[in-house]
């Protein structure tokens, strides 16, 4: 697979846009062990974006793109929000249809791909904000898990509706004052990771994007388990520095401050027994040379 599909006919090479030539010449497609370290080297890992300067979501988006194990056969589904401004720069097929229906669209998409390409790996990854995942789209998020739809759902949790200017969301902390929560939010942050576990997700992780190795491992596990076992969910803290009154350089510190042992985004990971067995089988496959020959 790899870059075979994106090769340019020699006669047309010089008239293709430079972005496309770059994609063919130096994309990470087909590269074994691609990961966050490719960010900044490969142009298709979102060299330019249209988010605010210093936005933690922009680096989170790059990590997600860099950590797809199979980008040449991955389709991403997004939703309305700041992510819809980055999707135009993404070099995999992506769908943005309406607000909140991303897990429903992904359900239909994944089933269509599974039906049309039996025996071929086709990954679907949902990427949406907390408003789309937990508020307007909560029924579709949960029902896709109940149905055991085989795709990864990533929530960029910035604890408010950032794109529309900082209104209250279900994942906002209790007491936080925001637009539409003028006296402070009245109820607790919705415990979606726990709900995800109860709803049938086989892998659930909560973390910030301050530690790229950790993000890379979570994303890869989320996708691989979803491919073979069942639905997976990752909640990433991507603070909207603009709406919480931080400077462009303060996003990283904000994430570090929020991931302490007793903080909202302390690293948490749940892996179902089935998923553990699957991950163990992958490890075994990886090291066939280590098993001494009995012959």
């Amino acid at each position: 697979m790899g870059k075979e599909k994106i090769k340019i006919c020699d006669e047309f090479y010089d008239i293709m846009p430079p972005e496309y030539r770059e994609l063919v010449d130096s994309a990470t497609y087909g590269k074994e062990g691609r990961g966050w370290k490719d960010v900044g080297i490969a142009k298709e890992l979102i060299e330019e974006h249209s988010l605010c300067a210093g936005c933690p979501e922009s680096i989170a988006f790059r990590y997600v793109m860099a950590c797809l194990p199979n980008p040449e056969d991955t389709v991403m589904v997004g939703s309305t929000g700041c992510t819809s401004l980055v999707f135009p720069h993404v070099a995999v097929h992506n769908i943005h249809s309406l607000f909140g229906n991303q897990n429903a669209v992904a359900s239909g998409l994944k089933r269509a791909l599974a039906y049309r390409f039996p025996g071929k790996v086709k990954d679907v990854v949902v990427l949406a904000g907390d408003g789309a995942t937990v508020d307007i789209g909560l029924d579709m998020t949960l029902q896709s898990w109940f149905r055991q739809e085989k795709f990864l759902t990533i929530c960029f949790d910035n604890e408010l509706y950032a794109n529309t200017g900082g209104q209250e969301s279900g994942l906002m902390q209790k007491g936080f004052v925001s637009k539409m929560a003028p006296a402070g939010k009245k109820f607790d942050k919705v415990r979606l990771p726990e709900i995800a576990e109860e709803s049938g997700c086989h892998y659930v992780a909560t973390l910030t994007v301050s530690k790229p190795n950790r993000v890379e491992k979570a994303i890869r596990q989320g996708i691989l388990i979803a491919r073979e076992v069942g639905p997976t969910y990752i909640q990433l803290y991507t603070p909207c520095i603009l709406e919480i009154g931080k400077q462009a350089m303060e996003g990283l510190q904000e994430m570090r401050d929020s991931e302490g042992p007793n903080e909202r985004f302390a690293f948490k990971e749940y892996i179902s027994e089935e998923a553990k067995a699957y991950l163990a089988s992958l490890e075994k496959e990886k090291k066939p040379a280590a098993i001494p020959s009995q012959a």
Partner: protein
Amino acid sequence: MEANSVIGTINKKGQKIVDPEYLFFEAPRQQHFMTGSEVVREAIRRASVDISVAYPITPQSEAAAMVGDLYVEGYVGDYFRGESEFAVMSQCAGASFGGARVFTTTSGPGTLRAYENFPMWAGSRLPILINVMVRGINSPLNIQPDTLELGMILDTGMLIWHAETAQELLDYLLKGYIVAEEPDVHLPIAIVIDGFFVSHTKDMVMIPSADIALPPYNPYRSPVPCMDMEVPPVRMMRDPFVMKSNYISYATHASWQQEIRAAIERSRKHTIRLIGGLIEEENSDAEILIVSSGTAVAQGREAIRLLAEEGIRVGIVKVKTLRPFPHEEIRQATKNAKLIFVPEFNVVGWMAREIKAVIPDNHRVIDGPHVAGGMTMPPEVIVEEIKKVLAGKKEVVHG
């Protein structure tokens, strides 16, 4: 057409894939006596549908459930129940984005709950086929037929065909896929029937053999990229297409809506050939005409018979497609009429509005009779309306 390569082959279910023209016009047919819901099942059995998503709401639940039986029998690739109509139509969108031939059904309040998806389907050029079995929209609670919801989906960018009978329902479901999937059309299509009147009553229907089927959908004939990564990745909305950031994206936005409407108009040539014109006329040289669609036409026909017994000659124009709307055909068919009655199963009279908008001297249009909220429309009601106007007992209100 690439689909020719599969014609004559046998599908997973053992059906022979045949040329659509053969299935529609030449294949031997046998007479069956069945409900509209059962007719939906028989159409989908022959339609090579990849994915169907279902949700219960009367009166379409029965047909949606029967498509589930087809899935168990192996005629439909995948099938499941969504969590609401909004979700179902989103799931259908995902499946269609992924290159599948998709079928679903809806009714009344469900159609409205699903509504946000319809312009998105059209704007995304997804050739999903949806069978709309119209019913009353709450409140007060009512499950009886009412075409109010149909007036609301007229301008979503979908093709809309309104079947009068179970036979038309069968033919429109199959032919609808072929027109909707043409590369110069490639739009969603609503095949509409009046709930209960067609869905739950038995009718004689001529059906081709179950061992033949339409060629499968070929997603690579789509005018927009199929979301399967089998073709080189595209930056779908580069230079943020969603934002009017520069002249090119502004021009794209402005022209895209026009292109959807143009694609609806381009469907005429395919539709006219397959369903024999966008309208049907009977005695349209008469000075009094009834113009309508769906089962209002059937009631109109009976009214004509009753009026003929009294020596009053009335003709009828049946509108088969609401999108594209047959402007020119209706203008021609009504050119000699002095009075044009538009009986409708709804309170607002959207069909009369549509007709008034396209014909000259539209004071000739009598907006009615209307029944609403699931009331039946006995032919006598139409007769009475016509006689009242002729006797000058009913004031014709224009506007």
